[in-house]
């Protein structure tokens, strides 16, 4: 297992290569084979004699990841890997993480508050609140939950359900007055169609869930439990 906890553990007075040599010795690697490949993997193969203290934040983070890969782990923990990075740095880290996962088959656990960034790379999510996991969900399930939806407040819920079943419309019954309909619809046409079938809607709300909203709703739900 490899890990970066808070900030990368690198000696500022040493070059990228020397930092890796240090780490190789620290973890007891039998030889220094693979250092050049590791530097190339994280995009630091051309840093030469430049000292780590003169690296950009993104470069330091990449070096930290390289250091954590010294013992060829199968599992990597990254704690807030993109904190303080500029947009380019964030992209570099994102691409590196994807590369490590796809090419090196490394499982990566990322702890981050940047939900939008996570949504671009994560395959499974665990949401924490005050140190407790309140929800675990796959990315497929999460995408579904964040799908565009229309919330309907209705009176004769059973008839609506029958109509949706008949017309193969994706829906979810929330309570005895609320039904969520998933998918993008032309609202006026949709309401028109429903009213032709004597299906009266009292209220209608269109929603597009973001990961942020999902998380806030989750936390709010957890607090109210």
């Amino acid at each position, binding site marked *: 297992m490899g*890990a970066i906890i*808070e900030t990368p*553990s690198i000696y*500022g*007075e040493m070059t990228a290569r020397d930092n890796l040599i*240090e780490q190789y010795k*620290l*973890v007891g690697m039998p030889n220094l084979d693979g250092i050049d490949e590791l530097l190339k993997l994280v995009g630091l193969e051309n840093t030469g004699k430049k000292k780590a203290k003169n690296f950009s934040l993104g470069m330091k983070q990449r070096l930290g990841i390289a250091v954590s890969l010294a013992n060829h782990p199968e599992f990597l923990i990254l704690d807030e890997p993109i904190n303080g990075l500029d947009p380019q740095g964030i992209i570099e880290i994102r691409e590196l993480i994807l590369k490590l996962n796809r090419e090196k088959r490394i499982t990566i656990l990322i702890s981050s508050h940047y939900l939008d960034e996570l949504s671009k790379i994560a395959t499974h999510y665990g949401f924490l609140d005050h140190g407790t996991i309140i929800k675990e969900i796959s990315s497929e399930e999460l995408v579904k939950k964040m799908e565009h939806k229309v919330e309907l407040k209705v009176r004769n819920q059973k008839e609506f359900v029958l109509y949706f079943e008949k017309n193969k419309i994706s829906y979810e019954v929330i309570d005895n007055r609320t039904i969520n309909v998933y998918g993008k619809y032309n609202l006026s046409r949709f309401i028109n169609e429903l009213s032709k079938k004597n299906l009266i809607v009292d209220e209608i709300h269109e929603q597009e869930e973001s990961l942020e909203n999902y998380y806030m709703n989750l936390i709010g739900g957890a607090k109210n439990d």
Partner: protein
Amino acid sequence: MIKLLNVGFTRLRKNRVFWLLTIFSVLLALFMIYTQYSDMKRYGEVIEVEQLMLNYSTMIGIVMAIFTSLFLGVEYSDGAIRNKISIGHKRTNIYLSNLIITAITSLFSYILFLIVIVSVGIPLFGVITIPISKLLMLIVCIFITIIAYSSIFTFIAMIISNKTITAIVSIMFAFGLMIMALIWLNILQAPKFIETASITNGDTGAVEIVKEPNPKYPSETKKKVCQTLLDINPAGQMFQVAGRSAPNIKILPLYSLGILVIFTGAGLVLFKKKELK
């Protein structure tokens, strides 16, 4: 532990502070030789090479304070300690490996100084005049005191997470030890009588010096206390050895080993409990 030592010595070789220390040791030796040679040529003084060999001991404490705080200070600031622990190295081993590295580096600095003094000084000033066994005993005392110093500054560096504060505390502590040692030395070297007046006989021209008991002359108890404190104080040991005036020279290494045990023991206990954020 071997891995930690290996890593530490690898870092040492590439460390700018270590190379500055090395250059300083060589230049200091050459500077001392040069000044003594100038005095010899100008005033016809007899220079003892063995004395030159002992002179670095009076200031090595300050040098070690600076080196240790800068070298070990980055362990916290660069996250190295956190990295070592997360890999699986025990805190005890991390502490002891750092102590060993700083002790060996400091001894290396002094040995380098000796090599320069001996290789340049003997051809210029002549051979060593005191018995080799006595000189060796003095040098062994210096080496053991250096190890005691290492334990003190390693303690400070491993307990304080902030590199700047570590440097300030270490240097102040080193100076504090020196100042206390000088104070006690001063007390011990106070003369029993002081000259208060001199009377010249107008007829004969004879001069009579009037002496009175020195009010600052310490009592026997005070002398014993000061001497003991001086012997325990690493700076005090160095001053006595450099001046070749240590009445209890055989006990000095025991005091140094005591300092080593106390500071290392306390350091290990505190470091194990330390919150590493």
